[in-house]
């Protein structure tokens, strides 16, 4: 097994120490950082995403893989052009205005990063204006809004409405999710997509951005 395949396999196993060692080994062997990232780390993460989608592994295993990925990426960052990790698109995420429960949002962010997106995480209790301003300023094509409370779900609509009011409907897409949120609710408020869990949210974002 070559070192890149070994990185991917160790990442799948959530073995962050081994991923770190192998990534360093690949660098020492003279492999380009981009190649290690794409064909080792990202390749492993793609498999992890697929296994999770197919219910072959559990969420903590995905997060162990994400931890291993972080270990590898940290080693590669100084070697990548401008210190930036190449991405396939930008996504703004945050919890709905009035909501501080961020675990779901954090999980979506981790999985989006694992899939190769740049994530602009606005944190908790985010106003509609901040969501839309951040998307416009960063050039993000997707805004992801998470809520845990039934009473804060309503502020998701404010974000969807503001995107439309500013004439950005075709340019910036919205996706909503969170424990009490349903597909019907997403449709009712006019969101472009609904992610029923973190893995599905990544699929939806990919579909929205056409990657």
């Amino acid at each position, binding site marked *: 097994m070559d070192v890149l395949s070994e990185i991917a396999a160790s990442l799948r*196993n*959530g*073995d962050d120490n081994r991923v770190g060692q192998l990534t360093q080994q690949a660098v020492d062997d003279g492999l380009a950082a981009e190649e290690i990232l794409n064909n080792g780390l990202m390749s492993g993460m793609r498999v992890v995403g697929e296994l999770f989608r197919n219910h072959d*592994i*559990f*969420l*903590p*295993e995905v*997060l*162990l893989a*994400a*931890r291993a990925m*972080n*270990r590898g990426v*940290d080693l590669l960052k100084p070697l990548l052009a401008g210190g930036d990790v190449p991405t396939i698109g930008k996504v703004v995420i945050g919890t709905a*205005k*009035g*909501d*501080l*429960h961020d*675990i779901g949002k*954090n*999980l979506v962010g*981790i999985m989006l990063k694992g899939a190769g997106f740049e994530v602009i995480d606005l944190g908790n*209790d985010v106003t509609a204006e901040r969501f839309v301003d951040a998307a416009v300023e960063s050039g993000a094509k997707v805004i992801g809004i998470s809520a845990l*409370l*039934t*009473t*804060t*779900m309503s502020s998701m609509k404010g974000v969807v409405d503001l995107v439309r009011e500013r004439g950005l409907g075709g340019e910036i897409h919205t996706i909503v999710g969170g*424990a*009490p*949120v*349903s597909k*019907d*609710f997403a449709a*009712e408020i006019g969101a472009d997509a609904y992610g*029923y869990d973190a893995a599905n949210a990544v699929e939806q974002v990919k579909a929205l951005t056409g990657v």
Partner: protein
Amino acid sequence: MSGITHFRPSTATPDRHTVLRAQGIPDEASVPERVAALVDDGFEIYSSTVDATGIRAEISIEEFDAVYRGEGQNAPRTPLEGIFPDAHGLALFAVTVGEAVCSEIRRLFKTGDPALGYTLDTIASAGAEGLANAMARDYQDTVSRSNPNASHVRVLPYSPGYCGWHVSGQKKLFRILQPERIGISLNASALMKPLKSVSGVLVAADRESHDFDIEFNFCTDCAGQECRERIQSVLFDTRGGQ
């Protein structure tokens, strides 16, 4: 009159199956070795950081009516408004597993260890829910002691932010209960800090009166519908020989 309870860490510590279930791992599943180690690590951090406290104060139906109405933002109809006016007893409560656990969760996510952060988060969430249930059990005992004929009465906690009771209801609840005394504060959006805290009202009511159909406007938008499990827990609780 309000009372403060300092819980033993064991009261605030969920069992392993509860944590695994919260992580999407069913009881019958074989737990991968690395995940098992992660849960061990999570429990270890939790046990060294948890500081479980609660506060409870009985309140009359009339006083609670004002708390419930809050800032007038509740759903037009809610299950709670059909239950509390006939309650045998009501008590405001707040519980927390403490800020140290919450800081540790944030630190783990920030420092690139989402796996352990998530595990600690699920332990702390289940721990806080466990404390709310401990408060309910304790109030159940109080109600049963004061009225031995109340074997049909069951206590369930209800919280602002759920089932149509708007989260802004927290403001009046805090004004009366003063959970600041146990380190829980409220932000401008009426959310609690530490985040792993639960507040609300303990409603001692006839067992059947806690039951309601999923017919409210907000029910159609609610994917979780965890109310079912809560209701089942009192409908089929046969304590007191009923």
